Structures are given as structure tokens and as C-alpha cells.
């Protein structure tokens, strides 16, 4: 077997060259720059940052370029890169109520304080291919500016409902031991901190499928988007040499507050329950799916029957990470010559025994 691996060396070197050529494409066409990718393929970059779990637009753009646009490969590259960097600090929790809003909508209240701000969304486009974009060198439509900016702090919709008691509150229980998937292995039962971290970097497609399943009878929830907001939040750290907080960055995040009905139990009065979605970048579908799956994974905590895949945290969290899933599935391509030879021998032997047994049976039946 070692002989075969050695013989593959030149072939592997050549495949690297072949992929480099394929990545470059026609040399007569201008090569993509990282700024072109990060400026013009923003949502692809945002997805790679969210699931790669590293906020760095330039690195995400590089990963996308290297992976020829394959999001999953780019996410893998970013996750691998982060292992080479030291951890400097843990931030203070970001305050999304102080977000600089670019988009903010509520499906539960029309006249919500701060207003419905549609922002940059495809929601109201016709999904018709725009052939004007195929033409180069045209000046594109620019955004309009209103006379006045939005209010500086737009209140969160869910916070407006708290005083009535009809919505379950999310309170800080003061536990400062926060689960960290980058340093601790997945464990069950999982706390909500572990679940939210896992969901924030989970595969968007997998979460979308699970979220869809909860609304189609596999874990019934009637969801309302209490609020969806997109914008920039300030990241603060307390450097140990300073001992006081400083703002180090403004990062783009998408937040979804999903409101779900809850019948109540003997101990708890009926009230709405909540699911939460928060992702790096503009990742609306991901944030919505995350909030639905967060809510369905709260089944145990809310005393609901755990009957469906989206309610089963071990099933969801163990299979949500596309770097892990991709790693296992793609490893089947690697040489399994010895394993297969062993299985082949076994199957041949079993078949021989089967044939022999059948021959005896046929003979006995004939007699």
C-alpha cells in the first residue's frame, strides 16, 4: 500500500498545478482582486465569515478566490487559518439595541417605534434576470438619501413587549462560564450558549431545511418574525494591560427575534416564547433559520415532547457543521484499498459458503 501512496506524489503535484490553472480560467480575462470579491460578492463573503466563524472580509474574499467560489471549501480554509492565530481576548457581549440600523423590519407590529426600514433587500425584487448587469461600464443606480438619518438607538421590538408579560424574557442568569466550541468538545445535554454558538456557525442549508421542517409538522411552531435587523454593532474588549473597556471594531451582524406561541404548563402561564438568531454579516435566511431551530431546540427546557429531528439537539448539533460533515463525507474518496480488500474477501467467502449451502439444499430437495 505504501508503494501506491509514493507513486501518487507526482500526480498530486500536478493536480495542484491543474487546479491553479482552472482557478485562473482564461488568462485573457482580467484576474479577480480581493477587493472586487469583498465589494461585489458581499453576501458570499458574509456567508464565509459567518460559517468560517472569523470576521475578516479580506480573508473571506481570499478564501473564496482560492476555492473558486465554493463556499464550503472557503469556510474550511478560514477555519484552518484561525487555528494559526492566538486568542487575544473575549469581547463584551455586543449590544444589538444600539446597532446602527441599515435594515429593520417587524412582521408583528406595523407601527413599530423606529419604523419599518426595508434597507438593502431582495424581498421586493421580481427575481427576473437583469440583463443590464451583463453590460459592463454602465453607471449603476445609487441609493437615495433621506433628509434626516434614522434615530440613533432604535429599540428592539421584543423589548417593547416585556412589560406586558406576554413574551418570555431572556434574562442573564449571571453565569460567566460561557461554553466555547473552539476549546471544548460538543457535549450533551447542551446549554443554550453551546447551541447558539453551534448554530451561528452551522451550515445555512442544513438549518434552512430543519427550520422548514418545524413549520411543516415536524415540531409544530407558528413563528412570527418579531424583528429582523441588519447593521453594525460595536465590539468592545477590556485589554488586560489597560483594565478598562475600549471599542475595537464595528462589525456587521444580522439579528432575528422569532416569536412563537406556547400553550403554557401547570407552572407557567401561556405566553409567547422566543428563538434567537445572530450571525456575522448580512445573512438573513441564516439568522431566521437559526432562530427557528434555536426555538425548536428549547423543547426540553419548555417541557415539550421531543419527537422531531429539529427538536433533537444531539441530532441537530452533531450534524450542523459543514466542515465536519464535509470532512467525513469527502474522506470516503481517499484510498480504502486495504479495508475494501478485507471486505471483498469476506463477501467472496460468504458467497462461496452460500453457494455450497444452496447446493446441499437443492440436492436434499431432489432426493
Amino acid at each position: 500500500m505504501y508503494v501506491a501512496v509514493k507513486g501518487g506524489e507526482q500526480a498530486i503535484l500536478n493536480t495542484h498545478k491543474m487546479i491553479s490553472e482552472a482557478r485562473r480560467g482564461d488568462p485573457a480575462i482580467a484576474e479577480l482582486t480581493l477587493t472586487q470579491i469583498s465589494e461585489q460578492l458581499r453576501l458570499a463573503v458574509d456567508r464565509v465569515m459567518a460559517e468560517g466563524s472569523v470576521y475578516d472580509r479580506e480573508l473571506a474574499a481570499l478564501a473564496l478566490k482560492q476555492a473558486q467560489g465554493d463556499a464550503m471549501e472557503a469556510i474550511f480554509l478560514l477555519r484552518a487559518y484561525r487555528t494559526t492565530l492566538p486568542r487575544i481576548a473575549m469581547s463584551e457581549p455586543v449590544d444589538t439595541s444600539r446597532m446602527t440600523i441599515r435594515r429593520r423590519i417587524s412582521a408583528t407590529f406595523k407601527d413599530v417605534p423606529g419604523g419599518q426600514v426595508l434597507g438593502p433587500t431582495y424581498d421586493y425584487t421580481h427575481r427576473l434576470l437583469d440583463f443590464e448587469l451583463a453590460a459592463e461600464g454602465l453607471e449603476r443606480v445609487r441609493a437615495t438619501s433621506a433628509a434626516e438619518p434614522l434615530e440613533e438607538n432604535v429599540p428592539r421590538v421584543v423589548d417593547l413587549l416585556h412589560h406586558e408579560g406576554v413574551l418570555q424574557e431572556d434574562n442573564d442568569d449571571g453565569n460567566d462560564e460561557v461554553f466555547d466550541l473552539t476549546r471544548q468538545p460538543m457535549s450533551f445535554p447542551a446549554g443554550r450558549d453551546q447551541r447558539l454558538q453551534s448554530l451561528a456557525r452551522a451550515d445555512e442549508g442544513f438549518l434552512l431545511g430543519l427550520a422548514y421542517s418545524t413549520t411543516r409538522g415536524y415540531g409544530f411552531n407558528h413563528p412570527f418574525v418579531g424583528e429582523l435587523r441588519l447593521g453594525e454593532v460595536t465590539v468592545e474588549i477590556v485589554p488586560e494591560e489597560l483594565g478598562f473597556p475600549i471599542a475595537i471594531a464595528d462589525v456587521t451582524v444580522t439579528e432575528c427575534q422569532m416569536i412563537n406561541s406556547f400553550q403554557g404548563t401547570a407552572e407557567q402561564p401561556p405566553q409567547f416564547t422566543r428563538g434567537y438568531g445572530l450571525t456575522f454579516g448580512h445573512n438573513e435566511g441564516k439568522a431566521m433559520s437559526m432562530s427557528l431551530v434555536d426555538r425548536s431546540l428549547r423543547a426540553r427546557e419548555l417541557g415539550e415532547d421531543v419527537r422531531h429531528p429539529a427538536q433533537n439537539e444531539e441530532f441537530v448539533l452533531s450534524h450542523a457543521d459543514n466542515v465536519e460533515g464535509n470532512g467525513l463525507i469527502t474522506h470516503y474518496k481517499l484510498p480504502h484499498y486495504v479495508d475494501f480488500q478485507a471486505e471483498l474477501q469476506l463477501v467472496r467467502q460468504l458467497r462461496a459458503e452460500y453457494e455450497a449451502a444452496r447446493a446441499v439444499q437443492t440436492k436434499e430437495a431432489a432426493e
Partner: protein
Amino acid sequence: MMNSRTEVHAKPAAIAQRSDWLGVLSRSVPGELKALAADLVSDVAFERLRAPSVGLVMVRGRAGGTGNVFNLGEMTVTRASVQLTDGTVGHGYVQGRDKQQAELTAIVDALLQQPKRHDEIKSKIIEPLRQNAEARRIENSRKAASTKVDFFTMVRGENVA
């Protein structure tokens, strides 16, 4: 724990001021800081206490925005520390991987702590950066505001005269 003794015992007002200018420097656009600071710091002698290096900060959020803390994901951050010839220590933390910007931030932080340079550096670097950032924020917010739905302008068909 460089210089920690002096900083821990610094007055709250001084801490708030320093936190404010560090926040402005950290979040500045790299090109802007370089353009504003290049001439002012070109002849400043300093020693590297911590060469600029890239690392990660784990960004945290709260469940539901108000609940328990969870780890959202990491971001790249570059930090640097310098000491001026009079012993003043400056620290720089910036988003991303721009080592020059991190060291420039540390030098400017140190200069701002020197009473004789404070006002000049503040007016020539910090205030312009703050104004630029605020202008960008307002411009972006005005664009967002143009997409705000004004339900009151809708006219129902049956009411049209």
C-alpha cells in the same frame, strides 16, 4: 501587564477620555489614520514593547439580545504596544490585520497621554477621524432612512375621489 499600576489608578475621567480616543483610533479607516498621522508621528522616537501581531477576539452576544452570553464567532485583531523615550506607553488595537495601523494607533495613544502634545494630536487626528466616522454613519443612516416605510401615505383605492 505593562504600566498597569499607573493605569489602574488613573482617574475615571482620564480613563473615559483614553477609552474614547482609543475607540476612535481602533475603528478608523486605515488609510485615513495614516494620512492624518504620518507627518505628526514621523519624528517620534519609540521602542517596541510588543511588536504588532495578529490574533483573534471572540465576539460575544446575548441570547435574545438580553439573556445569557454566548460566543458568536471570532474576528481578527492586530495589537501593538510602544514606549516613547520619556517612558509613556501606548497601546493599539485595530480590527483586521493591518500591523502598521496598530502600531500607529499605539504611538498616537502614547502621544495623547503627553500633556504637551495632547491638544494638537487630538485636534489634528482624533477629531477629524471622529467627524469622518460620524459623517459616514449619518450618510449610511440617511440611505437606510430613505427605505423607511411611510404607511400614512398609502391611499386605499375606494377612498380615492
